[in-house]
């Protein structure tokens, strides 16, 4: 199979869907002639031009806010918030409007909206360009949240997100954009809400998503050297959450390490831990463990930033502590 980068896979999904459905358009800062801050939308702009790939002013509330109206009026906007750090500017629009209108208007209207945004540290971009705020959007009923780890997943999940009739937040990790993987041709979907075991193992389950899947696979390799079989469960979608996959893997291994890059306190790892503590308690052979970012802003200095980001050895160490 041919190999694409994560970025190319996302662009391909956008192009295929926009060919299929004229109601889909893209709007955001620098998505058009500049080709996107990370270059994702360049090829899309090339094919569809400025009528379907629209540059906006620096107006995050208008980017998501107008999209709510456009979606309610029948379009299928795919908007971009450059960095998830800027999403706080438009959380009213996303969380009070997009997420709620279907429910609070009694089902009269739907809001098929995708918000693409870049998460994660690793670029030396410091406190305002490095956050992973998925916990926020996961807490808001009415939203779905997707965080793919591989190019193939990114493509299939983005197509599903675009076809979904609800607002979906699609999280792209900056440090994954250049990573490559095999990606099927043509359009295919990966259902929202389905986790995937990226590596089987019998001793401990490493539960993860987005860039941390790579770290967990690396940790799995480290653990293997010590004869420990780590199962790497990539959630792929956070809401809806594939509880069955979590619980059945933990039932098998009896041990769970939850890994995310986001800050620990109040992170989505708490939700996963709670699900296990509530519904998987009987199968647990050891405490649950979270390996997360520390409770700090993301620092600029490269030595500090490197320490901020969860590493494979730390994950492996946590897993070992449960055995």
């Amino acid at each position, binding site marked *: 199979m041919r190999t694409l980068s994560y970025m190319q896979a996302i662009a391909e999904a956008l192009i295929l869907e926009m060919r299929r459905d004229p109601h889909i358009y893209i709007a955001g800062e620098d998505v058009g002639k500049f080709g996107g801050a990370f270059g994702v939308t360049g090829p899309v702009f090339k094919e569809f031009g400025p009528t379907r790939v629209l540059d906006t002013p620096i107006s995050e509330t208008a980017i998501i806010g107008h999209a709510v109206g456009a979606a*309610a009026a029948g379009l299928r906007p795919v908007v971009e918030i450059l960095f998830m750090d800027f999403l706080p500017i438009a959380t009213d629009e996303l969380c009070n409007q997009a997420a709620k209108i279907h429910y609070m208007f009694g089902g009269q209207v739907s809001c098929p909206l995708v918000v693409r945004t870049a998460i994660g540290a690793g670029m030396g971009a410091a406190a305002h360009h490095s956050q992973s705020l998925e916990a926020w959007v996961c807490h808001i009923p009415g939203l779905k949240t997707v965080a793919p780890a591989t190019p193939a997943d990114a493509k299939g999940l983005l197509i599903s997100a675009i076809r979904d009739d609800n607002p979906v937040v699609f999280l792209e990790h900056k440090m994954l954009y250049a990573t490559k993987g095999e990606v099927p041709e043509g359009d295919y979907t990966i259902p929202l809400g389905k986790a995937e075991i990226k590596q089987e193992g019998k001793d401990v389950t490493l539960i993860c998503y987005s860039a941390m899947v790579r770290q967990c696979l690396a940790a799995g390799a480290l653990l293997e050297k010590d004869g420990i079989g780590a199962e790497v469960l990539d959630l792929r979608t956070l809401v809806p959450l594939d509880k069955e996959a979590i619980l059945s893997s933990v039932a098998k291994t009896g041990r769970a390490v939850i890994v995310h890059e986001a800050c620990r306190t109040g992170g989505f790892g708490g939700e996963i831990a709670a699900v296990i503590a509530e519904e998987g308690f009987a199968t647990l052979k050891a405490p649950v463990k979270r390996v997360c970012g520390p409770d700090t802003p993301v620092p600029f200095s490269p030595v500090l930033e490197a320490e901020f980001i969860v590493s494979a050895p730390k994950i492996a160490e946590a897993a070992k502590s449960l055995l």
Partner: protein
Amino acid sequence: MAPPGTAPEKPDRTPDSKEGGLGLDSASQDAGLDCERLLSLFRCMVRIRAFEEHAHKEFLKGEMPGFLHLYSGEEAIAAGVMDTLEDDDYIVTSHRGHGHLLARGSDPKRMFAELFGRVDGYCRGKGGSMHIADMSRGFLGANGIVGAAVNIGTGAAFAAKYRGEKRVSVSFFGDASTNRGTFHEALNLAAIWELPAVYVCENNFYGSANYQSDYMKLKDIADRAASYGFPGVVVDGNDVLAVRAAAVEAVTRARSGGGPTLIECKTWRHWGHFIGDMARYRDPAEHEAWLKRDPIPSFKAKLLAWGVASENELAQIEEAAEAEMDEAVAYGKASPFPPVSELTAGVYKEDRP
């Protein structure tokens, strides 16, 4: 449809000023509307007033939960603007939105059911007064977040333009809401994208307890349009024909590709910000003066003066509205509460197959 009337002079904010007064010298007569149309404007305002009075009464009885923001006194704006729209146009409004729904043709029965939290309400009782919507009429909803609707209305305008349709999107909002950043971002986006959007600022001079001069150093909010490079006009919001004339112009501009307009309608709310607010912060003399400029009797006087209808005919309209709203209240109260299962139903589209 009649040709657009002349835009009226800017009224001074004191209600008894010459230009803003009750004189029949405004845009009214050259609007060229036929009697039926004039009566329908009157009926519209009367029905809104009757609805609000009924809602007020029911709220005081303790039968309505939540907050109730009445539109009484501002009827000329909803009536005048809606009269200029086509069936497939879009509308959004704020927390003070009953008048806009009624003027758009929504059914007061289902509105009351919503206000009582009943299953026959437009939103199955899940929205209430602050979140009432009627998608069958392009009405994308009231909004509990001040300043949020204006972005949504802008997006609906975008949808119309994107599809190459001739639809227009009208956003209603209050004076004080124009201090939110959303106002700035939405209007600027509409300007850049040259959207078929009409922004109607209902300036009742108060944002809850604060007078306009407390929260902006600007006399005419319409002047804020200059920041976005499109026209802003001021009209007497208590003169339904003046409002209508300005709306005709703005809607025509929007529909023909001329881009957005901001219309500021100077008006007055007859009650407190919400029911329960005694509005002690208002100057009684100013309040009295504005009550004398009630848009309904003043329009009624014109209709009589012009011989459009007799006292009796107009009284019949008023009685019919009363009866209609009595019935609507009864319908609303008779509607059952939604089943408890409705709590978790419909969070996502696929939840309710």
